[in-house]
């Protein structure tokens, strides 16, 4: 497996994976794998199915532990304490977001009502503005979430992640269900900001717009 290092200085290093080993039962996914991701970078992770893209996200989000090696966030090794801190500083958008039954507005409100998010709860105008930037109309808020198309759910999820105001975004195949126009809108919204975007993608259009490509 290839090992990647960043050309940027250590001081802006956000995540550092050092010589990790990870396996599911007998199947080895990572062996002596290292990677660094810097603040503000737009990274695309590519690879065939089963190459470890999802596992890499799970490791970085603290849902899995490496068997050997260590992962660092802002220079500190992962622990239960800083995993909880990390999850309050990032957002993660799954490829096919399912928020259960209910209308979009209620389901989004539920997230903004979390204790940690209460102070940053956006005004309705800001929500509508963000939806429009993603090529979505205000009416979508009153629609049943599960009746939306995959592309609409993906963009609603992205709007929620964006409105939470986090500086680090993990995006799982963010353009997989989008047309050219919507892709452009998504890119315009998040690629220009001072955001660190770590994405998995098979879409050459999206990969081309990232600063760095990591092939697993």
């Amino acid at each position: 497996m290839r090992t990647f290092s960043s050309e940027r200085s250590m001081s802006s290093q956000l995540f550092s994976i050092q010589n990790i080993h990870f396996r599911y039962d007998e199947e080895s996914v990572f062996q002596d794998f290292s990677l660094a991701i810097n603040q503000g970078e737009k990274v695309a992770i590519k690879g065939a199915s089963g190459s470890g893209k999802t596992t890499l996200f799970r490791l970085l989000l603290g849902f899995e532990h490496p068997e050997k090696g260590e992962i660092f966030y802002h220079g500190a090794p992962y622990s239960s304490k800083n995993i909880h801190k990390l999850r309050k500083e990032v957002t993660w958008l799954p490829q096919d977001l399912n928020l259960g039954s209910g209308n979009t507005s209620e389901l989004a409100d539920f997230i903004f009502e979390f204790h940690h998010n209460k102070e940053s709860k956006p005004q309705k105008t800001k929500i509508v503005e963000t939806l429009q930037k993603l090529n979505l109309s205000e009416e979508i808020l009153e629609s049943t979430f599960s009746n939306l198309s995959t592309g609409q759910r993906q963009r609603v999820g992205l709007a929620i992640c964006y409105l939470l105001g986090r500086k680090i975004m993990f995006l799982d195949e963010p353009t997989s269900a989008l047309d050219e126009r919507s892709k452009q809108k998504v890119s315009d919204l998040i690629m220009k900001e001072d955001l660190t975007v770590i994405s998995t993608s098979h879409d050459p259009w999206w990969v081309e717009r990232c600063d760095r490509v990591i092939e697993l």
Partner: protein
Amino acid sequence: MDIIDLSWWQLGIGFLILIIPAWILWRYKTGLNKKLGIATVRMTLQLLFVGYYLEYLFELDNAWLNAAWIMVMVLVADFATIDRSELNRKKSLLIPIFAATFFGIIVIDLFFLEAVIQLPTFLSAQYTIPITGMVLGNCLRSNVIGINAFYYSLHEHQERYRFYLCCGATRNEAVFPFFRDALKKSANPTLASMATIGLVSLPGMMTGQILSGSSPLIAIKYQIMIMLAIFSGTVLSVYLGIKLSNRFVFFENDVLDESIFVD
């Protein structure tokens, strides 16, 4: 009116009616006849045992002995809840669900038996054992529905749960929708039977009282009380069962311990 005693041979005749369902089940090759046989034998033996035991318990009428019997009933219900919820008998589930059911039953018993009925002797067997049994039987059914719904839904929609965590939710906040749905699923059957009671069916306790000579008015008062006890007991035990077990089935990184599920 005096109660008509049922002799053993009369009861034996009663078993003959099983020929009809057994023939229907056999005719349509349901494969349920063996199960029917086992269930009938088990029911008879269990109730015979309980009948003789209760006679003895009523005679002694000792509050400690009654409390010990409740403990045994809760313990059996605890194992049954976990097995029927298709979960593994792990300490992380057995202890919290036992504590939840026991606490739920004790609260309901103390409230209804001591504060409402005001028994002349504390935890008198004649009232404590049947009422506890009725509430516990319903708690078991609701716990199975609620606990199974909660954990299997969380297992199935892990991505949603993790999405909430990555949106800044605490574990309690992230499980909230799953908790709410489990409570709804477990409370709905009791609510539905409360809404139709007396119209669609005459409940067992009321029928039993009327058969043993009570006036229908006394019987309905007891029936209303038992419905209130059942509803409160089931909601409380499902709530506590999920809340307490939640403390032991997650790892430090908030990932659900998958070993609780039966493969």
